[in-house]
């Protein structure tokens, strides 16, 4: 028994069908707890007032926007090396989810920045690199859409994902060059003394877990859809041949 057994689409469908109800339930439970706790049961921040609550959406989505790309990178590598179709389809399924998280992170950041920084948008290193990440997602999705043959599309998008990762990291450090920027540094690290206060931290962790589960659930669902679409296309092709 190894993890590669789930590369078999039939096996994957069985397994994902079994865990989907659980992951949906856990996602709803964690998100509901975290968001209600964060939005209604925490005190206002001394200086930011009520706007601090946007952190419960902003931080988890921003984290998952990056992690989604990393997951796509791993899935692309598995596809290129071992040629498991489920892997390529999972990468394809994750891209729109990651794009959505990126846009949500940018939008919530803008909404928070307006009252606190006094501006919707600045060309701060973190903001700029997120905008570039957004472009990478768009290009990746557009390339999947543009190519008709599924295997060709899977190969080319996998190569794009690998090269794009290198350039995304490069851009992240290139924009650092301008200035430190307005965006605050990391305040959740485990190895630092000064972090965000516990009152805000505890619901935030629940929210982060909730968003991780949300991502897993959505990717599983979308991968199942992709597999079914692939099967449907194969059936239609067979019918036309007969």
């Amino acid at each position, binding site marked *: 028994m190894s993890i590669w057994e789930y590369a078999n689409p039939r096996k994957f469908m069985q397994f994902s069908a079994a865990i989907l109800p659980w992951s949906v339930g856990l996602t709803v439970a964690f998100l509901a707890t975290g968001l209600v706790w964060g939005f209604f049961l925490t005190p206002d921040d001394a200086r930011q007032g009520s706007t601090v609550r946007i952190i419960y959406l902003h931080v988890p989505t921003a984290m998952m926007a990056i992690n989604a790309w990393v997951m796509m990178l791993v899935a692309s590598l598995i596809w290129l090396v071992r040629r498991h179709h489920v892997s390529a389809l999972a990468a394809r399924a994750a891209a729109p989810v990651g794009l959505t998280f990126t846009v949500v992170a940018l939008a919530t950041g803008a909404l928070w920045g307006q009252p606190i920084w006094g501006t919707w948008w600045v060309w701060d290193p973190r903001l700029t690199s997120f905008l*570039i990440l957004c*472009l*990478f997602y*768009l*290009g990746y999705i*557009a*390339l999947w859409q*543009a*190519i008709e043959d599924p295997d*060709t599309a899977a*190969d*080319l998008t996998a*190569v*794009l994902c*690998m*090269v*794009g990762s290198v*350039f*995304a990291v*490069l*851009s992240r450090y*290139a*924009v650092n*060059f*301008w200035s430190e920027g307005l965006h605050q540094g990391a305040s959740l690290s485990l190895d630092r003394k000064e972090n965000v206060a516990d009152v805000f931290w505890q619901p935030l962790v629940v929210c982060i877990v909730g968003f991780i589960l949300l991502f897993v659930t959505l990717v599983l669902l979308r991968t199942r859809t992709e597999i079914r679409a692939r099967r449907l296309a194969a059936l239609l092709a067979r019918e036309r041949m007969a």
Partner: protein
Amino acid sequence: MRALFLRDLALAFRAGGGFGLGLAFFLLVAVLVPLGVGPDPALLARIAPGVLWVGALLACLLTLDRMFALDPEDGTLDLLATSPLPMEGVVAVKAAAHWVVTGLALTIAAPVLGVLLNLAPAGQGWLVLSLLLGTPALSVIGAFGAALTVGLKRGGLLLGLLVLPMYVPTLIFGAEVVRRGAMGLDVATPLAMLAGITAGAVALLPFAAAAAIRVNLR
């Protein structure tokens, strides 16, 4: 290799719109920006590095879809694939030919446009040097993008979307070199980063581009 290089050069020079297009676009950008923002010399001097680099980048982008232009349709690409020259070499040669007709031409034309945009004299040398070091990266990254979209009928917009985010580091460091050079600051760090990106892209991206072309020919 040499024959392919000369063929691509000849095509670019003789077939209309290859050689002149990028250069004319670069010129247009440099002429239109002062008309748009007004003739204030101080303002122009401030934005000149960025405008020139953005202009060079867009001029490069504009001519990218010609790199493999008709090759997949008339069978040239199949012939090249079966020739003894490895696909990596083909991509590198095509990128080099593209660089000569765009990057090199832009580099030579840039000082004139720098004068038009009131770039400080101290920045002129850095402008030429940064373009010389940076534009090969633009051509090679573009070759990778063109290789990804080689089989597509209307890949133009997609090509731009794929390539533009990858141009960001080059643009930032290139413009930074010129900006610092024009103000008389130390340029060593951005210059080294720019050269490093170009060296890395030239060394590695032909392999990725060749892999993409092989997939497309399959």
